[in-house]
């Protein structure tokens, strides 16, 4: 690398810290607001330093909910979000890895047609077919259910393509050695291919978990009962009421709680996250 002189280095550090400040400021404000008194905020008198209502606000948020709008404890919303995110991540990985296995390691009639049928789903996110999908889920009596929340979001090819790509790089000799060692297709999958896919599965899991946790439009449509609300839907409903009635500390505490799990995953599993992000976009 070409060495930069001192002054340029300081400029780089400076710009990066400005970037970090811009990125972090809204979150800082949210954390601060979640520790303050609502009356103060509503008057536009919010302080930029932490207030003293931290425990009180978070206790009410998690276990009680707002007193006005939804009245649903955010703890329950988080549980719903968690179940949905896990169902999407695990479900997608599970069905994708086995179908990719079939497509790469077997030769059978309609193999290519099936591959294309799955592949095309890459092109259309759920948003563009939202009402017809809603109707199907309603017809199947899956409104207000975890299945209804997760299944339509599982119907996509990203993971299948990723696994297919990975399987193609596994040396053929490994399968041949397994065959000579007396392993059939299922045993090869379980004993060899699955353990080798561990890192890929983990990276994919990280990305899918974040995407699942952050889903909004779909849960907004298909959950009507308050106790099936996800946290993203819940937070929107909290600010539906007239401005004066919005309980801002609780809204902000909910925002912080909604960010916590996915941000934790990104920071704690940074390597897997970066890998998953780059791989799924390829």
């Amino acid at each position, binding site marked *: 690398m070409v060495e930069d002189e001192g002054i340029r280095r300081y400029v780089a550090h400076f710009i990066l810290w400005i970037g970090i400040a811009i990125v972090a400021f809204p979150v800082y404000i949210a954390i601060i607001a979640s520790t303050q008194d609502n009356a103060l905020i509503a008057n536009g008198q919010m302080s930029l330093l932490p207030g003293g209502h931290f425990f009180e606000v978070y206790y009410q948020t998690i276990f009680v909910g707002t007193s006005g709008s939804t009245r649903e404890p955010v703890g329950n919303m988080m549980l719903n979000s968690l179940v949905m995110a896990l169902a999407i991540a695990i479900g997608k990985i599970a069905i994708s890895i086995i179908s990719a296995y079939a497509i790469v390691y077997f030769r059978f009639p309609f193999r290519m047609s099936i591959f294309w049928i799955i592949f095309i789903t890459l092109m259309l996110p759920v948003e563009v077919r939202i009402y017809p999908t809603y109707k199907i889920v309603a017809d199947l009596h899956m409104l207000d259910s975890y299945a209804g929340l997760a299944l339509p979001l599982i119907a996509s090819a990203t993971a299948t393509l990723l696994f297919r790509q990975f399987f193609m790089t596994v040396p053929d*000799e490994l399968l*041949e050695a397994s*065959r000579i060692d007396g392993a059939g297709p299922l045993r090869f999958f379980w004993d060899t291919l699955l353990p080798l896919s561990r890192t890929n599965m983990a990276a994919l899991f990280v990305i899918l978990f974040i995407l699942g946790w952050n889903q909004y439009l779909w849960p907004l449509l298909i959950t009507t009962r308050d106790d099936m609300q996800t946290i993203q839907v819940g937070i929107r409903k909290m600010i539906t009421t007239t401005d004066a009635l919005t309980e801002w500390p609780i809204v902000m505490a909910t925002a912080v709680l909604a960010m916590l799990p996915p941000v934790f995953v990104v920071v704690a599993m940074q390597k897997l996250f970066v890998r998953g992000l780059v791989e799924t976009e390829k």
Partner: protein
Amino acid sequence: MANVTLRNVRKTYTGGFEAIKGVNVDVADGQFCVLVGPSGCGKSTLLRMVAGLETVTGGEIDIGGRVVNQIEPADRDIAMVFQNYALYPHMSVYNNMAYGLRNRGMAEAEIKTRVEEAARVLELSAMLERKPRQLSGGQRQRVAMGRAIVRQPKVFLFDEPLSNLDAKLRIAMRVEIRKLQRRLNTTSIYVTHDQLEAMTLADVLVVMNGGQVEQVGNPLAIYEKPATTFVASFIGAPPMNLMSTRPDEIKSQLGGAAGEAGIVGIRPEDFVITDQTPAGGVALPLTVEAIERVGAETFVYGSREQEDQRVAATPGELPPGEIIVRIPGTEAPAIGQKIRVAAVRQKLHLFSGDGRKRIEA
């Protein structure tokens, strides 16, 4: 223990490409058979057909008196060592070796005995808990061997097992493999493109070219009496000098059956630098063009004079006019020097004009 017999074995791919064009080979019980040939000659395909990894489209493969054409690889009672070893990267050395035994439902105590015995023989005992990526190339190779040994199969199959090792290790492992095979006395089929490896390992050498067997036999017998010009130039290094000659020329010089011959072959080491022409032998005047001194011996690259430049142009032969001569390392003619080399009658190899037939005269 078993013998392996290939009867008119063929392999035709769906596109119509004929990879194996009817091969007959018989490997007796406990023998070490080496399939050798240039890349693309079908030797690996043939081995994989014996393993059951490629389907057989014609003929029969017989292992221990049982035709195995339709039998799964796992049920053929064979073990295979792959070129890239194909170790399971996520399993320890111990589990790599134990995997095939576990799949067969062997008792864990018996597995332990076998794996530990194999590890002892292969000097892997200290590494049983390591993963393949923590091992050196030579150690991985030995694990691959171990995985084959613990199975105690009827037949070992080796697919260029040493080609990923450096030259020194390759020679050491070659000796190891041979010693091991002698001790276990297990029938083995070994594929390589390295003729030196083939010569040193084989009880039975099978030279292949273009999906066909060129010659089968004892390595030294093949070296001494190559059946075709292909075998003549493939076995032995540097390769045999092959010169095309007009039949009448040969007849007048050698007489008798030699009259059919169109190509004369002489190995580099069978030449001597001399002014005499041995009775019934041949002599060539050469101009020295290049010299390679490698210590114990010296290779002389010379071009023949004008009137002799009628060299056969089939592939694998010397470029027109070039002759290699091997002489003791103590001697070295100067570049540009004109010399005369000669070979005695017994050292001449005669082939038909197309190079497909050896002529004994």
